[in-house]
């Protein structure tokens, strides 16, 4: 990293501003395109977006829906943040959610006649473990066998879907479905002791969003206030330097993906235990279960600047988009898929602008060092999307 003197306040401020404005610019860009798309679909963009905003944040009920939709996004996003901070790319959020949900379902099904105080933590914990295992596998494959984690996480997504389809169609299927001959691939209703407690009896809001926010804060503490988190980030900034300092890069890679998977696993677990039907159902695809949260979590993590705390409002915003899309569909007959397309554009804009931001910063750094005529260490290969300049958030 570059040494900095007092003369750099101006450019430093500029690069700081640039680094904070990148996600905002990305969202503005995506919305501008979204407005054009709305217009082309024959809807007034202003009334469209207004309907979305009202549908997402305009009433108590809307806020509850938004909080529920944000929960998996936040947990997956925080998990993605852990992985990216350690310079490993986890795109297996979908599979990790599914494996977490399956583990929770299996444990929950065995919890008849167990009091909630024991059953619920066990069921949630199983989800964490299920996701962690699905993260640890690509972690170990990368650390000890040199297998690219992008590929292995993708393939484990595929394995997880097939496992889900098999489990829900055969061993875990609701016995009633076989009796009636309908054979819908779903489990029986899980024992009530594993239902996520509701805030208001008969309402929709369960404790899932609270768990997610607490976990995000815990991850912040872990990453920035513990040695273990420091090691993860050190490995992420420079594997060689960390190795030289006596840290095991391999172990930290496994740890990062394990933790990352655990977060997605918990997200999947909450999705099942907090579902309205209190059971796990499959339509044969991952998206049918996750609603693409395993990928959309990447969007919230990027928009949150790969910071666990910023990921909280970021998830709330993107959760709101998903909920608002339903209102938009009602108001202007624009399919909710619009939001997914816009999320894709946000990702494209963030990653495209990120390098640009880094280049500007490097140029500024070079100019500063030229002015100061002090020697600088060159940051030869910048790590993906690391934010060395505002690490303490």
């Amino acid at each position: 990293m570059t040494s900095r003197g007092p003369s750099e306040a101006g450019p430093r401020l500029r690069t700081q501003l640039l680094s904070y404005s990148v996600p905002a610019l990305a969202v503005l860009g995506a919305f501008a395109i979204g407005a054009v798309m709305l217009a082309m679909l024959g809807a007034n963009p202003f009334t469209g977006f207004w309907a979305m905003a009202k549908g997402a944040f305009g009433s108590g009920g809307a806020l509850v829906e938004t909080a529920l939709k944000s929960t998996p996004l936040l947990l997956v996003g925080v998990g993605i943040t852990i992985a990216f901070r350690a310079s490993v790319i986890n795109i297996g959020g979908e599979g990790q959610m599914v494996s977490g949900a399956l583990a929770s379902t299996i444990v929950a099904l065995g919890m008849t006649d167990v009091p909630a105080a024991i059953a619920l933590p066990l069921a949630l914990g199983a989800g964490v473990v299920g996701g962690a295992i699905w993260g640890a596998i690509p972690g170990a494959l990368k650390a000890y066998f040199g297998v690219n984690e992008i590929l292995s996480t993708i393939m484990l997504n595929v394995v997880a879907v097939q496992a889900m389809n098999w489990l829900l169609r055969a061993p875990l299927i609701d016995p009633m479905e076989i009796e009636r001959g309908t054979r819908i691939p779903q489990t029986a209703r899980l024992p009530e002791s594993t239902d996520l407690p509701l805030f208001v009896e008969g309402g929709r809001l369960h404790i899932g969003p609270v768990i997610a926010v607490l976990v995000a804060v815990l991850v912040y503490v872990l990453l920035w206030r513990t040695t273990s988190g420091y090691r993860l980030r050190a490995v992420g900034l420079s594997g060689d330097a960390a190795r030289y300092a006596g840290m095991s890069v391999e172990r930290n890679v496994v740890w990062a993906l394990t933790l990352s998977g655990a977060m997605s696993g918990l997200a999947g677990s909450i999705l099942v235990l907090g579902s309205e039907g209190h059971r796990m159902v499959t339509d044969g695809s991952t998206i049918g279960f996750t609603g693409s949260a395993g990928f959309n979590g990447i969007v919230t993590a990027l928009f949150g600047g790969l910071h666990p705390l910023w990921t909280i409002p970021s998830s709330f915003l993107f959760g709101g988009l998903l909920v608002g899309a339903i209102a938009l569909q009602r108001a202007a007959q624009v399919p909710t898929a619009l939001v997914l397309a816009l999320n894709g554009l946000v990702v494209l804009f963030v990653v495209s602008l990120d390098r640009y931001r880094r280049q500007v910063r490097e140029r500024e750094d070079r100019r500063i060092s030229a002015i100061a005529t002090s020697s600088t260490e060159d940051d030869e290969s910048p790590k993906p999307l690391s934010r060395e300049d505002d690490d303490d958030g």
Partner: protein
Amino acid sequence: MADIFSGVVIVATLSSGIRLAVPLLLASLGEAFGQRSGVLNLGVDGIMLLGAFGGYYTTLKTQSPWVGLAVGLAIGLFLGLLSSVVSVSLLAEQGISGIGVYLFGLGMSDLLFQRLVGTPLPVPSFQKAPIPLLSDIPVVGDLIFNHSIPIYLAFLAIPVCTYIINRTRFGMNIRAVGENPEAADSQGISVTRVRYAAVTIGGVLAGAAGAVLAIGLGIFQQNLTNAQGFIAIALVYFGAWRPIGVMAGSLVYGMVSAVVLLLKTRGIIPLGASDLAAMIPAVITVLALVVAARRFRAPTALTKPFIRGG
């Protein structure tokens, strides 16, 4: 029950395995070009989905699968160029940018389908074109020489791609840029231009893969590809970046899918077991990735953006 072992059923199953392998084959051949040049394009599935919708919709409107395929190619060309801009010119992190293309394609194809079509209407598929004389050979004739033209073309593409990559100036440039962009640059090869070309070829083939998939099935639905584009990326590793290896991987997938389909439709074993069988190729691929990581070396500059003098 015993009839699944009859010759006719076996040939029909293998033949449908070949058909099912084609979208994967096209997509992973294209991806191999990009990866050989040093660019990992994770957006294949998104490009396939939009190519699939474009191909389906055009076929629906014109009733000509060939016009549909052409539109699929054009969409792939456009999205391939877009991916190049993001990965090559804007130097984006390739492990993430493709997810953006994927989400865009997933959302956009669904949006357009719901808005423009709504209820799934079937479209005319490609006509079978049995090759004279050859298709009369018992068993083999029906298996290999009795398909539609796009399927022959997909398999013809394998030697063509091998030739391009190994024997032409363009292919040499692709490999040079993927192994050592600095050296290639100093030899006067434009890293940017070669990578644009390679990634765009990948886009075109992904668009074709999607169109062939949708028109072959005669329908479109949300998430039609069901992650086939991602599998195609893994198959490039599976096939050690060689067209012939990519073909082997695609055929494994196609054949297993065909057998799974057969088991499902005949209801021979309890329904769930076919899902278990469907898991096999994915598990094999993961294991193959472990072996490939040991035995084969990925292009050295894969996923590394090139900055002149950087």
